């Protein structure tokens, strides 16, 4: 489907009327003139925290306001280990923002963003307007729930969790697994790629299977994957499933869930085949976070935000940069480590642009671990750079690959990965 000029203007119009409505609110402390040196960052996750911190580290004369609706952040990476019972609670995955303020002078505004006026360079929030010179959006993902018949964006996840944004949803899924009778069935539905964290659903499959093997004898997990095969680390997941979870995992490729019935815990494949479960973990198809969609920053696919591969500036609205899962970062996967790398390149080029200095081409890394059992993990890595002819981020040949096998040393490194990346985001 093509987005023509008329539809595009309609989309923009929608965004600006949303903006106007929100303008009625009272002004916050960041509503005045910016002094030409204010960067506003929206979203306190893997991308936003790093962008805010690195801008301040590189140039402390730039004012940075980080807007986040929560007073903490819970990491999606490793949340599958909590679901599998390897963590007591979510505290090892939770960070706060106070040290970003104490150590780097990042001003944190806990507020809900209600709209963006790209022309006026204003972010509307539940605590008033915030003006900016440059805006960095790291809004993560939202769900295309309209593509699943019977899915109510508000009520369905209360009984059929997605658990694809870590926090209460993650806790709900584990509680449902704990409450499930032995001999029961878990149904996991995976949307068509691209989605946040390509190996994530398969790590979740492993962790749920591990939980069932230990705590719920004779139970099984049916995996309905809309994709023709496992999207990431396929060989390693198949090997691990055969080694540990034979007879527990029933993996069914090319099974796209199109309908859900929360009342009788059933999902429907392509409108015809019913699959029932005691616990259903339905991960809906995804798009950029609603903030970016409402601001008219998504491209003709209506899902993801096209950006300049050097600066991560939106190709639609000037002075707005989009990083992390929400943006189109070429060959880079939608992962936490990708967001970390993108944030640093974006920060570098915002600082350089504000200081009239030369822009620097992107160089970034992805490293992403998945657990197959309590002690074994696998990873995928890659180095990424800009291809000038293609005007896109590509993988450096030879750098992309996966672990040769399941291993305990990878699990040890994985835990240090988490510790380091969360420390970098929060100190």
């Amino acid at each position, binding site marked *: 489907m093509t987005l023509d000029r008329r539809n595009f203007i309609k989309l923009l119009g929608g965004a600006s009327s949303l903006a106007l409505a929100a303008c009625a609110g009272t002004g916050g402390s960041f509503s005045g003139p910016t002094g030409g040196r204010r960067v506003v960052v929206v979203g306190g996750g893997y991308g936003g925290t790093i962008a805010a911190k690195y801008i301040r580290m590189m140039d402390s004369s730039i004012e940075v306001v980080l807007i986040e609706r929560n007073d903490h952040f819970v990491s999606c990476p490793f949340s599958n280990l909590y679901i599998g019972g390897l963590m007591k609670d979510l505290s090892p995955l939770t960070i706060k923002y106070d040290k970003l303020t104490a150590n780097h002078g990042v001003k944190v505004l806990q507020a809900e963003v209600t709209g963006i006026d790209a022309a006026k360079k204003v972010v509307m929030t539940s605590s008033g307007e915030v003006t900016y010179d440059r805006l960095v959006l790291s809004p993560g993902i939202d769900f295309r729930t309209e593509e699943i018949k019977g899915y109510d964006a508000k009520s369905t996840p209360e009984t059929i969790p997605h658990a694809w944004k870590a926090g209460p949803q993650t806790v709900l899924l584990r509680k449902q697994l704990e409450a499930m009778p032995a001999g029961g069935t878990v149904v996991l539905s995976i949307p068509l790629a691209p989605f946040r964290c390509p190996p994530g659903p398969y790590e979740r499959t492993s962790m749920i299977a591990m939980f069932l093997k230990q705590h719920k004898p004779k139970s099984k997990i049916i995996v309905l994957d809309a994709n023709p095969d496992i999207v990431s680390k396929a060989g390693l997941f198949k090997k691990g499933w055969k080694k540990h979870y034979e007879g527990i995992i029933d993996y069914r490729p090319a099974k796209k869930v199109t309908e859900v019935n929360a009342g009788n815990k059933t999902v429907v494949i392509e409108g015809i085949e019913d699959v029932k479960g005691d616990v259903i973990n339905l991960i809906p198809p995804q798009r950029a976070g609603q903030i970016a969609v409402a601001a008219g920053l998504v491209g003709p696919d209506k899902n993801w935000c096209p950006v300049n591969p050097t600066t991560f500036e939106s190709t639609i609205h000037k002075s707005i940069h989009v990083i992390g899962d929400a943006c189109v970062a070429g060959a880079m996967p939608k992962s936490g480590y990708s967001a970390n790398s993108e944030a640093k390149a974006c920060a570098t080029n915002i600082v350089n642009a504000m200081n009239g200095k030369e822009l*620097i081409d*992107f160089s970034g890394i992805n490293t992403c671990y998945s657990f197959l059992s309590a002690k074994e993990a696998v990873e995928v890595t890659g180095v990424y750079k800009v291809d000038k002819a293609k005007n896109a981020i590509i993988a450096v040949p030879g750098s992309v690959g996966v672990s040769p096998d399941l291993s305990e040393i990878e699990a040890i490194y994985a835990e240090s990965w988490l510790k380091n990346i969360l420390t970098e985001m929060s100190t």
Partner: protein
Amino acid sequence: MTMKWRGWALATGVLAISAMAQAAPPTAAMLSNACAGCHGTNGGSAGPSMPSLAGQSKEAIVDAMKKFKSGARPATVMGRLAKGFSDADFVAMGEYFSKQKLHPTNQSLDAAKIAKGASLQEANCGRCHIEDGKEGKDDTPAMASQWLPYLQIQMADYLSGKRKMPEKMEEKVKPMSKQDLDALLHFYASVK
């Protein structure tokens, strides 16, 4: 029917600035910042199995990266990641991390082992691991304040033959007991 987004953006006149033409190649900071997700901001690791890169010499980092790239040094992710960079990139990263201050760590360590390790270090290792391991001769890596689990993983790789010891190191390490080596690692981890 379908129109690529660039063409569409140009046609609708909403294309933002194009930075491509004038952007310079990645700087040492751009290359090195990408490592910090695992090795800590400015190369100061939060532990426990990731080494700090801050305060390493340029030579030590270039040597390590070349060995990762060739496969001479055993690795999980580092062998593949090293293939994504050129020798000139290694030099740039080496220079960048060598300028960062040594990252002091607070670890729970055994005081008796530290004391024993200190005398072993002086008698055996100090000619290459100079200044109590805060610095290294030529491409010898700095050891001070590295996380103990990282040091233990590396020593296990040396002892199993997976990682090859330099000749001079082998001469010193071979006669030592496991307890001696453990004490040495406790000592290096304790140095600030």
